[in-house]
């Protein structure tokens, strides 16, 4: 199951979405995230869905691959939907089964939240699937650059982030390896009481931590050995290039934001 997780993974390609400047993609996702939660207008949500579908189609990511990767994350969406469904006490009663009462407000509220979450997850995944981790952190660093003036360690944050992103797949592979090794030693992770199940993960977590710390140390040494000394005065080998298509994409998403606000006022 772990081998299908696609968070932090990059799928090489030459699509329109791949070719966009990471800054444009980042800003677009941020705009999308904010204004998606502003409006309850079905038309606005429909537009958001259309934008998401357009992004997905033009990114050229195989559907089966994407679906498998996102399935696990969808559990969160379903869970959120159910939570709202049962917890909202608004509108007319639709179903009443003993202790369980479902209101029409719950259905509306649940679908609304679930749709928003789903669209957001898909679009954010599109961002990471079509942008190399290096580009992503470059973009982030450039966008946060003004914060340098307020003594925010922008370069260090970006570096930390890029290292974290880089090592997610490694960590997953390693987890899978250790899981297999302990399974072969007779460990079971899916039976017994909650306490027993949690305990069963200690033999997986300890080696994982040990290896992560070892790796961190090695990485730090390797960086120092190659003369890394922080962000001060550092130049970039890779330059980002802003093009017309980036401006156009930003306008489209900005338009979405404006409309989303207008539909509320």
């Amino acid at each position, binding site marked *: 199951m772990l081998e299908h997780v696609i968070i932090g993974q990059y799928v090489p390609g030459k699509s329109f979405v791949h070719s966009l400047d990471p800054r444009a993609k980042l800003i677009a996702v941020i705009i999308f995230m904010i204004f998606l939660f502003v409006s309850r207008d079905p038309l606005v949500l429909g537009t958001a869905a259309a934008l998401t579908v357009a992004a997905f189609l033009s990114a050229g990511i195989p559907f089966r691959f994407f679906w498998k990767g996102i399935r696990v994350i969808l559990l969160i969406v379903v869970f959120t939907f159910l939570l709202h469904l049962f917890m909202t006490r608004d509108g007319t009663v639709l179903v009443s089964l003993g202790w369980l009462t479902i209101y029409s407000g719950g259905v509306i509220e649940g679908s609304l939240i679930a749709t928003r979450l789903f669209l957001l997850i898909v679009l954010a995944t599109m961002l990471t699937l079509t942008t190399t981790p290096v580009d992503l952190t470059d973009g982030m660093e450039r966008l946060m650059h003004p914060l340098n003036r307020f003594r925010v360690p922008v370069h260090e944050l970006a570096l930390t982030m890029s290292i974290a992103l880089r090592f997610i797949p490694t960590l997953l592979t390693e987890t899978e390896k250790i899981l297999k*090794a302990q399974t072969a030693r007779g460990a079971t992770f899916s039976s017994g009481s909650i306490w027993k199940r949690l305990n069963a993960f200690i033999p997986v977590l300890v080696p994982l931590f040990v290896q992560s710390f070892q790796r961190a140390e090695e990485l730090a040494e390797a960086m120092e050995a190659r003369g890394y000394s922080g962000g001060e005065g550092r130049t970039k080998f890779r330059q980002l290039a802003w093009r017309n298509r980036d401006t156009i994409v930003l306008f489209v998403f900005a338009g979405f934001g404006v409309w989303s606000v207008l539909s509320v006022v």
Partner: protein
Amino acid sequence: MQLRVENVSYAYMPGGPFEAKALQGTSVSFASGAFHACVGHTGSGKSTLLQLLNGLLRPQEGTVYVGDWTITPETKQKHIAGLRRKAGVVFQFPEAQLFDETVIDDVMYGPKNLGFKNDEARRLAEEALARTGISTELFTRSPFDLSGGQMRRAAIAGVLAMEPELLLLDEPTAGLDPAGRESMMELFRSWQQEQPERTIVMISHDMNAVARYADTVTVMEDGKAIAQKAPHELFTDAELLERHQLEMPDTVRLLYRLREASGVNMDISAFDEKETFSRILALLKGGVQDA
């Protein structure tokens, strides 16, 4: 334990852009009570095959027979839980599985999972540690304070303590010094020969060890087992080795070169120093007669 793999295919991340076809309809069998080796290029599917043999992976096509178990794509995980008792796996760099506070506790983890009582598990662990050459005063140390070679031994003890009938080894000697490699191989061989049904399948890039210790050698290439031969057959077939880019063991290479240089036809299958020496001696004696 008798092993058989029939038309088995396995791909990692099937259907995606990163699909990796690890095994492509391969068939191979390993007889019970023998020491089998498996060689081949990196990426040829050796580790995948090994994981199929103890049910950690299920075939996506084909059937795997391990002792009394039959594993097909539909087989449920529950169904093969019993197989785990009988098949021990030592993965590449097994020291990554150490986790407990002391060495002895770590080795007892497996037996305890199998349901052994504390004192029984301790007895098995002590036996296994003694066998792998970990001295008693290290038993209560943290496994993370051991040297690399000792960690490897402790990890292997953790698998032996479960008293498997089948031992699956994935490059068990990688990264050890020559003396460590040899004592580890001796350990595996004596373990295997102790009881008639004990079987080993070992993946290795170390042709010297394979030639000396294995009863059969299986050659993997592009997700298929393409040959299974006795070491003296495989390692004297220079053409076959060349074709599959396999190395000759050092002793065979020496004799092979001598044969090429001298033009004297002689048997070049010798896998230890003594045999090699007697072959060279015979060559020299023959040479003296010729002259």
